[in-house]
C-alpha cells in the first residue's frame, strides 16, 4: 500500500545522519568525568604470567588506576561463557577451558589482555601501559589445527586433553558407509576454509559508567544484541543484576557477527568504572581489532560424495576439524556444528549424510560467527564437491546439479533441516540465462586466442536463516531462546514508534521496518520512528545476526500491529457508530466499508488517549507488544555464476561477469536487499581471492594490519548482475526469508570453481592469490 510500503526502494532514512557525520557512535559519547582505558596485552601466543608489576605505571601522570587479571578474579567477575552446549559422540560434554576477562596466570593468544590502565587521557593510559612490567615464561604454542592435534602438541587447557573440545557427529554413519560401498563413483576433496578477520568499519568500543548512589551501571557498547549482553553480564559475569544494568548500543558501524559476543573489554570497562569511581571508555584501534575481534571460518575438511551409475547422489561423508582459537567464544561451539553440518545437504536430494566435526583449541584469537557462520563453510564443501564430481564424471556441472535438485517440498534432509519451500531450478535457469551459459565455450576459445585462461564456476547455495525456533534450538543445546519482540506505540497525535529487539548496524532497519507500518496503515514512513539498541527503552530482544531481523523481528512487528489495528478498529467503529467488522484501513484512515464515513488515524489515537469516549470497558492508550517465536528456519537459496579470466603470466584473476539469482522470498525494500547482496558478495569474493588470516608457527599474526591483510576494494570486484526468483516463505506472514548473508555464503565456491575451471587444475586453496594461482598453473 502506498509508495513507501512493501516492495518500494525507499531511500534509507538513516543515511542522512551517516553521510553527514551526524551518527552517534560509542566513541562520540562524552560523559562527565570520563577516563580512558588502555590494555596491556600479551606479545606471546602462549606464556605463563609470572608477575605483573604496576607500581611504576601507577605513578605516571594522569593515571587513575591500574587493574590486573588477578584483581578481576579476586572480585569474582565470572569467566567468559559459551552459550551453546555441544555433546561429543561418546556422550561427554564439551571440554571448555576457563577464560577470565584478563589473564591472571596464563596467556594463550597474542593480544590477550593481562592488565588495564585507566587514565585521564588515552595517551596517558598508553604511556603508563608501557610502564606496566609483565614477566612471562614462554611456553610452546600450537598455532594451527595440525599443530594442535599432533601427538605431543602443546596443551592449552587442562580440561581439554589433546586440545580437543568436542568430537561431534550428525547423520547415519553405517547407512552412509553402505552408500559409499555401493557407489558407482566416489569423489573426494580436501578443503581448507581460510580464517578471516571481520574488520567492521567501526572498531569495538565500550564505556562503563557506575552510579554509586543508585548502585546502577550503564554500558555503552558496539553490540548487535544489547539485551543479550545485559543478560550475560548479569547472569554469568556478576557485574550487576539486570534491573541495575542498562546496555545501550547506539549507532554501530558494522558487525558481521563479530559484535554479537560479549568481550573482555566490555566487562572490564563496567567493572573498572566501579573500581575507579569514574566512567571508563575503551575504544579499540585497528590493530586491536585484528588481534581480538573474534575471527571467522578456519576449517580443515575431508569431503566425499557417492554417486550411482545414473549420477544421482547417494551419500555424503564429511570430516571437519574446526579451529576455535584459544578460548570458546560465546557461540563458537554452534558455528561448526549446528550452523554448518545441518546445511550439508545443500540444494540436493542426498539420502545419506554423515559428518564428524572435531573442534580444537589453538594459540590464536578466538573464532566465532562471521557473516554466514558455518553456512559458507557448508556451501563451499557441497559446491566444490559438485563441481569436482561433474569434471570427474565429464558431465555438465549445471546438469549434474539439476539432476540432483530437491524439487518436492517440504523436504526433510538427513541432517535435521526441513526445507519448507524453494525452486532451485528457477534460480539456476535465471543465472544461466543472465550469464549466457550456452555461449561460454565460444567465449573461452576467444579468450584462449588472446592468451587468457577463461573459466566459469557455479554455486547453488542454501542457508538456514530466520534463526530460530526456540524449542528446537533449545533441544540442540542453545542456552537462549531465539524469538524476537516488538512494541508499537501509536502516540496521541498519530505518529508511531516501533520498539524492536533487533539491532541495526548497517542493515537499514530504520527504513525497512517503517515500510511494514506504511504498508499496513498507509501512512508515510516519516511518521514512523524505529527505536532500538537500548535496554531501558526496548522491552527485550535477541538482536541481529543470522539474517533473522526481518523474518523474526519483522514478524514480531506485524504481530504487534495486528493487535494495535484490532483495538484501533474498535475505537473507530465506536466513533463512527459502525460495526468493527466493517472497518477497513486505507491511506491512514479508518473507513466504514461501502460508505463515505471515515476517521483519520490521529483522531483514533487521540480518542484512545483522551479516553473521553471509548467503548465500555476498554483500557485507554494505543500501544501493543508481541513476542514472536518462529516455527521453522527460513531457507534463502540461489544460484551464483562467475566468469573470469586468469593471466597465466602473473596468476592474476580478472572478473568478466558475476551473476546472482537469489530467492529471498518477498522483498520489502529491493534497493536495501541489493546493497546487502553486494556486501555479501564482496566478502565472499574477498574470502575466495584476497582475505586470509595467517599466523607463523609461534602464533604471531602475520596479517595484523591492512598492509598484509587484503580487504576487498571496489576495483577488486566486478559489477554484479542481480536477479531474483521468488517463492514466498510459508513460515511467516511476510513471506520473507532473509538476505544478509547469502552473498558471503554462495560467492566463494563460484569463484574457486571458475578459477579451477580456467586453469584446469583443482589443487587450489583460498585465498586464491595470484601467487597461489600461478603456482597451481606452473607447479
Amino acid at each position, binding site marked *: 500500500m502506498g509508495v513507501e510500503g512493501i516492495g518500494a526502494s525507499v531511500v534509507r532514512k538513516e543515511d542522512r545522519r551517516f553521510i553527514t557525520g551526524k551518527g552517534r557512535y560509542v566513541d562520540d559519547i562524552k560523559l562527565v568525568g570520563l577516563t580512558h582505558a588502555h590494555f596491556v596485552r600479551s606479545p606471546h601466543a602462549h606464556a605463563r604470567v609470572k608477575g605483573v608489576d604496576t607500581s611504576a605505571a601507577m605513578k605516571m601522570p594522569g593515571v587513575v588506576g591500574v587493574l590486573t587479571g588477578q584483581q578481576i578474579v579476586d572480585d569474582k567477575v565470572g569467566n567468559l561463557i559459551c552459550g551453546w552446549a555441544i555433546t561429543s559422540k561418546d556422550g561427554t560434554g564439551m571440554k571448555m577451558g576457563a577464560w577470565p576477562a584478563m589473564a591472571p596466570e596464563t596467556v594463550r593468544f597474542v593480544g590477550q589482555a593481562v592488565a588495564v590502565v585507566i587514565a585521564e587521557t588515552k595517551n596517558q593510559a598508553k604511556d603508563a601501559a608501557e610502564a606496566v612490567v609483565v614477566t612471562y615464561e614462554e611456553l610452546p604454542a600450537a598455532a594451527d589445527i595440525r599443530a594442535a592435534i599432533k601427538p605431543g602438541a602443546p596443551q592449552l587447557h587442562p580440561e581439554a586433553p589433546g586440545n580437543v573440545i568436542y568430537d561431534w557427529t550428525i547423520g547415519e554413519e553405517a547407512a552412509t558407509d553402505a552408500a559409499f560401498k555401493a557407489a558407482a563413483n566416489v569423489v573426494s576433496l580436501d578443503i581448507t576454509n581460510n580464517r578471516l578477520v571481520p574488520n567492521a568499519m567501526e572498531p569495538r568500543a565500550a564505556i562503563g559508567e557506575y552510579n554509586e548512589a543508585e548502585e546502577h551501571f550503564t554500558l555503552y557498547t558496539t553490540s548487535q544484541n544489547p539485551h543479550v549482553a545485559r543478560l550475560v553480564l548479569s547472569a554469568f559475569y556478576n557485574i550487576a543484576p539486570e534491573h541495575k544494568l542498562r546496555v545501550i548500543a547506539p549507532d554501530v558501524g558494522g558487525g558481521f557477527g563479530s559484535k554479537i559476543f560479549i568481550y573482555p573489554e566490555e566487562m572490564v570497562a563496567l567493572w573498572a568504572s566501579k573500581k575507579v569511581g569514574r566512567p571508563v571508555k575503551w575504544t579499540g584501534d585497528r590493530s586491536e581489532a585484528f588481534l581480538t575481534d573474534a575471527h571467522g571460518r578456519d576449517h580443515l575438511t575431508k569431503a566425499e560424495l557417492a554417486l550411482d551409475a545414473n549420477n544421482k547422489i547417494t551419500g555424503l561423508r564429511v570430516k571437519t576439524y574446526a579451529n576455535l582459537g584459544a578460548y570458546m567464544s560465546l557461540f563458537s561451539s554452534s558455528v561448526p556444528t549446528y550452523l554448518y553440518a545441518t546445511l550439508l545437504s545443500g540444494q540436493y536430494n542426498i539420502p545419506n549424510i554423515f559428518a564428524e566435526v572435531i573442534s580444537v583449541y589453538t594459540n590464536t584469537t578466538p573464532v566465532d560467527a562471521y557473516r554466514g557462520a558455518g553456512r559458507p563453510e557448508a556451501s563451499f564443501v557441497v559446491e566444490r564437491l559438485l563441481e569436482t564430481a561433474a569434471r570427474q564424471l565429464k558431465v555438465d556441472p549445471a546438469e549434474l546439479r539439476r539432476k540432483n535438485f530437491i524439487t518436492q517440498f517440504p523436504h526433510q534432509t538427513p541432517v535435521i533441516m526441513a526445507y519448507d519451500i524453494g525452486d532451485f531450478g528457477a534460480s539456476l535457469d535465471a543465472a544461466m540465462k543472465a550469464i549466457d551459459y550456452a555461449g561460454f565455450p565460444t567465449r573461452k576459445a576467444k579468450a584462449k586466442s588472446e592468451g587468457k585462461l577463461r573459466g566459469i564456476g557455479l554455486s547453488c547455495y542454501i542457508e538456514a536463516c530466520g534463526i530460530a525456533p526456540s524449542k528446537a534450538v533449545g533441544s540442540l543445546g542453545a542456552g537462549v531462546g531465539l524469538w524476537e519482540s516488538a512494541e508499537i506505540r501509536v502516540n496521541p497525535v498519530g505518529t508511531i514508534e516501533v520498539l524492536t529487539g533487533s539491532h541495526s548496524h548497517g542493515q537499514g532497519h530504520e527504513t525497512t521496518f517503517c515500510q511494514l507500518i506504511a504498508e499496513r496503515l498507509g501512512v508515510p514512513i516519516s511518521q514512523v520512528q524505529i527505536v532500538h539498541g537500548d535496554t531501558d527503552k526496548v522491552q527485550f530482544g535477541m538482536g541481529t545476526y543470522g539474517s533473522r531481523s526481518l523474518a523474526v523481528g519483522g514478524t514480531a512487528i506485524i504481530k504487534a500491529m495486528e493487535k494495535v489495528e484490532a483495538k484501533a478498529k474498535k475505537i473507530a467503529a465506536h466513533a463512527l457508530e459502525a460495526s468493527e467488522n466493517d472497518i477497513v484501513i486505507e491511506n491512514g484512515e479508518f473507513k466504514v466499508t461501502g460508505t463515505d464515513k471515515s476517521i483519520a488515524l490521529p483522531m483514533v489515537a487521540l480518542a484512545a488517549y483522551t479516553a473521553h469516549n471509548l467503548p465500555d470497558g476498554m483500557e485507554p492508550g494505543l500501544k501493543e507488544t508481541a513476542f514472536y517465536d518462529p516455527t521453522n528456519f527460513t531457507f534463502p537459496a540461489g544460484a551464483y555464476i562467475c566468469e573470469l579470466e586468469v593471466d597465466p603470466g602473473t596468476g592474476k584473476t580478472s572478473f568478466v561477469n558475476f551473476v546472482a539469482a537469489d530467492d529471498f522470498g518477498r522483498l520489502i525494500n529491493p534497493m536495501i536487499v541489493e546493497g546487502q547482496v553486494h556486501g555479501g558478495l564482496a566478502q565472499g569474493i574477498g574470502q575466495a581471492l584476497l582475505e586470509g588470516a595467517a599466523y607463523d608457527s609461534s602464533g604471531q599474526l602475520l596479517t595484523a594490519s591492512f598492509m*598484509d591483510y587484503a580487504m576487498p576494494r571496489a576495483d577488486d570486484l566486478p559489477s554484479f548482475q542481480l536477479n531474483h526468483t521468488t517463492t514466498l516463505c510459508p513460515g511467516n506472514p511476510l513471506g520473507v526469508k532473509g538476505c544478509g548473508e547469502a552473498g558471503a555464503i554462495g560467492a566463494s565456491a563460484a569463484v574457486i570453481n571458475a578459477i579451477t575451471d580456467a586453469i584446469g587444475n583443482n589443487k587450489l586453496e583460498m585465498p586464491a592469490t595470484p601467487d597461489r594461482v600461478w603456482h597451481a598453473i606452473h607447479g
Partner: protein
Amino acid sequence: MYETTYHRPSSVDEAAKLFAQGSEAKYLAGGHTLIPVMKQRLASPSDVIDLGKLKELIGIEASGDTLTIKAATTYYDIMQSADVKKAIPAIAHLTSMLGDPAVRHRGTIGGSIANNDPAADFPAALVSLGATVKTNKRTIAADDFFKGLFTTALEDGEIITAVSFPVPAKAGYAKMRHPASRFALTGVFVTKTKAGDVRVAATGASQNGVMRVPAIEAALKANWSAGALDSVKISDSGLLADIHGSAAYRANLIKVMAQRAVTAAG
C-alpha cells in the same frame, strides 16, 4: 603518539639548522611512513621538521635532455605534469599507479626515495633511468644512493632537494600490485638510453631493495623486445618470500613485468 615538536621552516637552510638542534629530529614530507609509525609508537622523534611546504622544494623543470623534479613535488603533480608526460611518460604512468588518490596528493618523490622502502616504485625509476639525486650538500648517482632496505647514502640531516633524470630513448614501467598494501609485489622499470645502453631495475623483489637485472639488460640490449626475454631465466636466490609471493613467483614476475614494461615503452 608520543609528544613531539613540530616545525615548519621557511627554507632548506633553516630546516637543516632545526635538524641539527633537535636531539632526535626527523624530516617530514608526505608522512606516509613516518606518521603511521609515530602513531603506533614505533618512532618517537624529538622534532618533526616539515619539508612538504617548502616552495624551493616544489616544482618540475624540463630542459634539453634533463627532467628535474624537485623533492617535495607530490605524486599528483608529477602525474599531471605536461613536462613529465612529454619527457618521460613512464614516470607519469608509474606515478598514476602509485597508491590511491589520497596518497598521490600527499606523497612526494623525495620522501619515497629517502625512505627507500624495498617495495616503493620510484627507486626502480631512478636506478633504471640513471638519475642523479641532488641534496643540500652534493649530488649522488642513483646507483650509489640506494644502500639496501630503508637505507640510503644520505648523511644525518642531509636533505634531498631534487632528482634529475636524463631523458631516455625509451622507458617503461610495469608492476604487479601487492594484494593488500598495493605497493609493488614486483615492479620493473626498463630504460633504453639515448646512447643505446639498457638499464633495468626491479623493486619489491629483492631482499636488498631495488636491484638491477643484468640478465634482462643483456637480452634487451641485444634485442629490445618482450619476446627477447622469453628464454631468460631469473634466479630466485636472494629474492623476498612471504605469504603474498614466493621467491620463485617474484622471479617470474621480474621477467613478466619486464616484458610488459618493454611493450609499454614501445
